[in-house]
């Protein structure tokens, strides 16, 4: 796969060292090219890339609020259409909070209306911008500042909201999951999404050094562990057809993934086994 050299997210941004979000954005923009307009929800990405009077963005970019990125993008897409600029790609970057929680209604509306845009949820599994609070996308067992482990608690007690399947229920032409640790897979999906007419949704898992609790150089390794253990599965749904795009040769034990992160440190072996059997069930169902 030929990977375009040109970068559309400039350095000098204020992301943590080892940030996974900026890796995801860089890779996506490489595939989308310069004739692209990006919309961001409020969140880490927005704050770190646009400290006035500077911006990291080399393409047109807009941010309005936390919960409305998909609605803003609807307006942008419609305006571009009215100007006859249908060749310009509209891409949205929303975090898991801005996507699965507060922005779900606006996203659902935009998807259901069929706007020609790509929505990329960069999922770091909690509200990282405000200091690691639990989101609907926080996985079972994770300790966050609002789902802390304690005497009466093992952390988050609900499984992660299945956003890609909620998007699939909208009947949109393209849905995919991806990981920053599998860049070719991700970039192929971005390319596909850009070539499809109508809404496309990509759910990108993106490890967060600060929120997950690991040292910065391990960002890619953590994403890889998520996929190799079957904790995060790479697939796409194209025109309703489900296809796993990457199968680990041999699934590694989930505890390798859990033990590498501070947010799961408190879990007992029993709880880790419970997570393992949940992962097993999903993997058997999806034949991973």
């Amino acid at each position, binding site marked *: 796969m030929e990977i375009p050299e040109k970068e559309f997210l400039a350095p000098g941004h204020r992301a943590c060292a080892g940030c996974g979000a900026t890796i995801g954005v860089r890779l996506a923009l490489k595939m989308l090219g310069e004739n692209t307009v990006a919309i961001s929800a409020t969140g880490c990405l927005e704050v770190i890339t646009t400290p006035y009077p500077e911006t990291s963005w080399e393409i*047109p970019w807009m941010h309005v609020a936390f919960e409305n990125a998909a609605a803003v993008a609807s307006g942008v897409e419609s305006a571009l259409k009215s100007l006859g600029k249908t060749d310009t790609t509209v891409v949205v970057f929303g975090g898991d909070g801005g996507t699965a929680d507060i922005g779900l209604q606006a996203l659902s509306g935009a998807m259901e209306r069929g706007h020609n845009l790509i929505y990329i949820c960069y999922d770091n599994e909690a509200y990282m911008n405000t200091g690691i609070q639990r989101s609907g996308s926080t996985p079972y067992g994770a300790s966050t500042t609002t789902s802390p482990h304690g005497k009466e608690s093992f952390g988050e007690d609900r499984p992660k909201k299945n956003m890609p399947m909620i998007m699939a229920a909208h009947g949109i032409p393209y849905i995919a999951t991806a990981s920053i640790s599998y860049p070719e897979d991700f970039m192929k999906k971005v390319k596909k999404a850009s070539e499809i007419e109508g809404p496309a949704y990509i759910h990108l898992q993106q490890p967060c050094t600060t929120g997950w609790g690991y040292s910065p150089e391990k960002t890619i390794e953590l994403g890889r562990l998520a996929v190799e253990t079957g904790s995060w599965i790479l697939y796409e749904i194209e025109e309703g057809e489900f296809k796993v795009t990457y199968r680990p040769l041999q699934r590694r034990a989930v505890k390798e993934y859990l033990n590498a992160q501070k947010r799961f440190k408190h879990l007992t072996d029993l709880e880790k086994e419970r997570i393992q059997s949940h992962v097993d069930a999903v993997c058997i169902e999806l034949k991973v």
Partner: protein
Amino acid sequence: MVLKVMSANQAIAEAVKLANPNVIPVYPITPQTTISEHLAKFVADGDMSAEYIRVESEHSAISAALGASGTGVRVFTATSSQGLALMHEIIFAAAGLRAPIVMADANRALSAPLSIWNDQQDSISERDSGWMQIYAENGQEALDSILIAYRVSEDHSVLLPSMVCIDGFILTHTVDPVDVPGKGDVDKFLPPYKPDHAYLDPKRPMSIGTFTDPNYYMEARHDMELALEGAKDVITKANSEFAEIFGRKYDFIEKYRSDDADTIIVAMGSICSTIKDVVDEHRDNGEKVGLVRVRVFRPFPTEEIYDAIKGASNIGVLDKNISFSVGGVLHNEINAKMDVKANGFIVGLGGRDIKPTHINEIIEKTKNTTKTTQWIGLNKEEV
């Protein structure tokens, strides 16, 4: 001039058709709904080429409007009451991003208790957002105000959004004769929107909606204040050009038989029409009663109002809103900004009909200046 009988909602839709926005994201809500319906029909019939977005909420309506405006095109949306309240966050964002959006608000009471009927609490509650606000007295003025609002909002020295407020049902659903201007005249008055300050275009990438630290935020807000103050000159110029082309003259305020009046009523919106009838009756009886109608509420026309009322001994300000424990907002702003002692009256909340007897009662009560805000038309008082 060709008069046609139509509701103020239809008049607004006709104005929007003439202004020809590129994008119309809108969500239905009583009593605004027929604006959305008229516009949907215009688009369906090919009378307008706008992208009509059937958003899933008012929050997304204003968000999509802001996205489209940020892309550099003219946009329109409309709402009412709960819808405007739901937009609140993005109302402020639209002004802050200096997006010249024009929106119609069908004035309706805010819940709870739930009411679909008219008062002006909804738009008054957005007064600090940085939007310009015009309160129209009738359908004709509603139509004309939309055109003037685009002209002023899109002026490069202003770049702030405008809200054209019309009383729910009393105007939105009342039909009376309205002159719909010709497209040629409107094109003369309203040039196409050509943004320079902010627009999304891959040929000239810029970032809109950035994050400011304490070194910049205050200046950005101060610039908005300057722009809103400066909008006064732009409004004056637009009004005079509008009068030249269309023959209808508007100003920040309208003075009705108030020049020599001892007693002056100050009010906004459709109630002023009824007050004019009452003023005439008093004048017929030799009583020097007059009306000052505040048409542009933001930017607030302090000097204009003050000049119009300072000579009167009795002043009564009517508010279809209440800032609890403080009184009506227009009343308080007048008393705060001017060296006058005006009496405040709360009227017509939640669609309570305001009859001439109520206006007469207010005129009588202005004779005794009191600091207490008086509620007129409460059921305990038989009228």
